[in-house]
């Protein structure tokens, strides 16, 4: 059975390490924080100048001047700080993000990330994606394994406009978890009830399935 969005988020959350500073792209990645164990210190960066993004505010405690990059109301954790936009991107570009978790339209076997513009569009919304993808120590992608039409999003060579070249190191989808290694894609985790062959057939690049393990949903 395909993983739910929350289940994918839980898979990513499991891999975000103690003391990491992490940037979350808009959409699905914003589900991740609630799956981080309370005792684990993972800090979130929002590129609009928030270092130490906390959960949404309790009712009655909203502040319209405190939002995430995805424009949702948030809070600041104790010990968080506000910075301006250049300082925020100095954090991103300067290699201070241990990880960025981003959505994608396509990921190529060499780690190319395509997530800002579809080929038929005259223009796209790039936001901070190019800077963050170019600067983060690790770029993880979180997405559905295929398009709504069933087309593969993980492919041998990208056909969509590039966001950043060769940056993706891990891909989390509703079918499993794939590690992007120098010369191959390794299927590490698989959703319960799905076969490696099914994942391979939904993927446009060769997968090494030798070491695949079923994902535990008691994350």
């Amino acid at each position, binding site marked *: 059975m395909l993983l739910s969005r929350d289940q994918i988020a839980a898979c990513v959350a499991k891999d975000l390490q103690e003391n990491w500073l992490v940037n979350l792209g808009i959409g699905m990645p914003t589900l991740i924080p609630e799956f981080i164990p309370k005792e684990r210190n993972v800090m979130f960066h929002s590129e609009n100048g928030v270092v130490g993004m906390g959960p949404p505010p309790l009712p009655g405690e909203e502040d319209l*001047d405190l939002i995430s990059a995805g424009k949702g109301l948030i809070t600041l954790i104790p010990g968080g700080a506000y910075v301006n936009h250049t300082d925020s991107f100095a954090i991103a570009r300067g290699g201070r993000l241990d990880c960025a978790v981003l959505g994608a339209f396509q990921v190529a076997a060499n780690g190319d990330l395509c997530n800002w513009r579809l080929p038929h569009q005259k223009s796209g919304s790039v936001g901070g994606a190019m800077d963050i993808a*170019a600067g983060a120590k690790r770029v993880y992608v979180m997405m559905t394994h295929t398009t709504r039409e069933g087309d593969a999003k993980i492919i041998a060579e990208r056909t969509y406009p590039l966001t950043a070249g060769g940056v993706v190191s891990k891909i989390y989808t509703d079918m499993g978890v794939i590690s992007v290694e120098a010369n191959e894609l390794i299927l590490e985790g698989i959703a319960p009830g799905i076969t490696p062959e099914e994942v391979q057939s939904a993927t446009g690049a060769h997968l090494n399935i030798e070491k695949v393990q079923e994902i535990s949903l008691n994350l």
Partner: protein
Amino acid sequence: MQNKRAHTLVEAVNVITDGMTILIGGFGGPGVPEILIDGVCELGVKNLTIVSNNAGTDKSGVARLMDVGCVSKLICTFPWAKESYVFKELYDNGKISLEIVPQGTLAERIRTAGAGLGGFLTPTGVGTDLAEGKKALTIDGKDYILELPLRADIALIKAHKADLRGNLVYHKSARNFNPIMVMAANHSIIEVSEEVPIGNLDPENIITPGVFVDSYFVTGQYKVGSGGK
């Protein structure tokens, strides 16, 4: 001492004329100088080039400025949001042109202008469509593109408090582009909620020194759409 306080909204914005390039602070809603934008709408100027992260929300902010016909070009990072339908319609009808800039590059281009520099090399965008036409350099084996400063005639800035010298502090994530944009225009105009006496802001905590501020308008009870009165 120079009196930087504009006593009316009209006085604050009437330096703006047709064809100017204007930096407008804000990211999403926070930090957008809605009231100054209201004043610009009332002026009825044309052919502005607007530099702002977003393309506006519904009919407020930058969207309102486009809706009333003041804008011929938008330089931004994220134009295609559902709430930016005013921009989309103008763009689809060929009534506005667009330059997309990655967000960190936009911030840095503005800062570069403010800092009196001529450009910078960034790894952002290397190999992408947005690198087209830009000079490429390789430094120590790493590829970069040369990005140029983005200077403007005017900056419209939202801050939290100003003192009489124009020193500014901001509020939470409403800070965003504002402290950079205020440095990069020939004339900066600040919308502030509150004016405080000199000495009220701790010199350690001032985010924008008043030397970057040309005028400020204290909004008090002003409501957007009341016509600049």
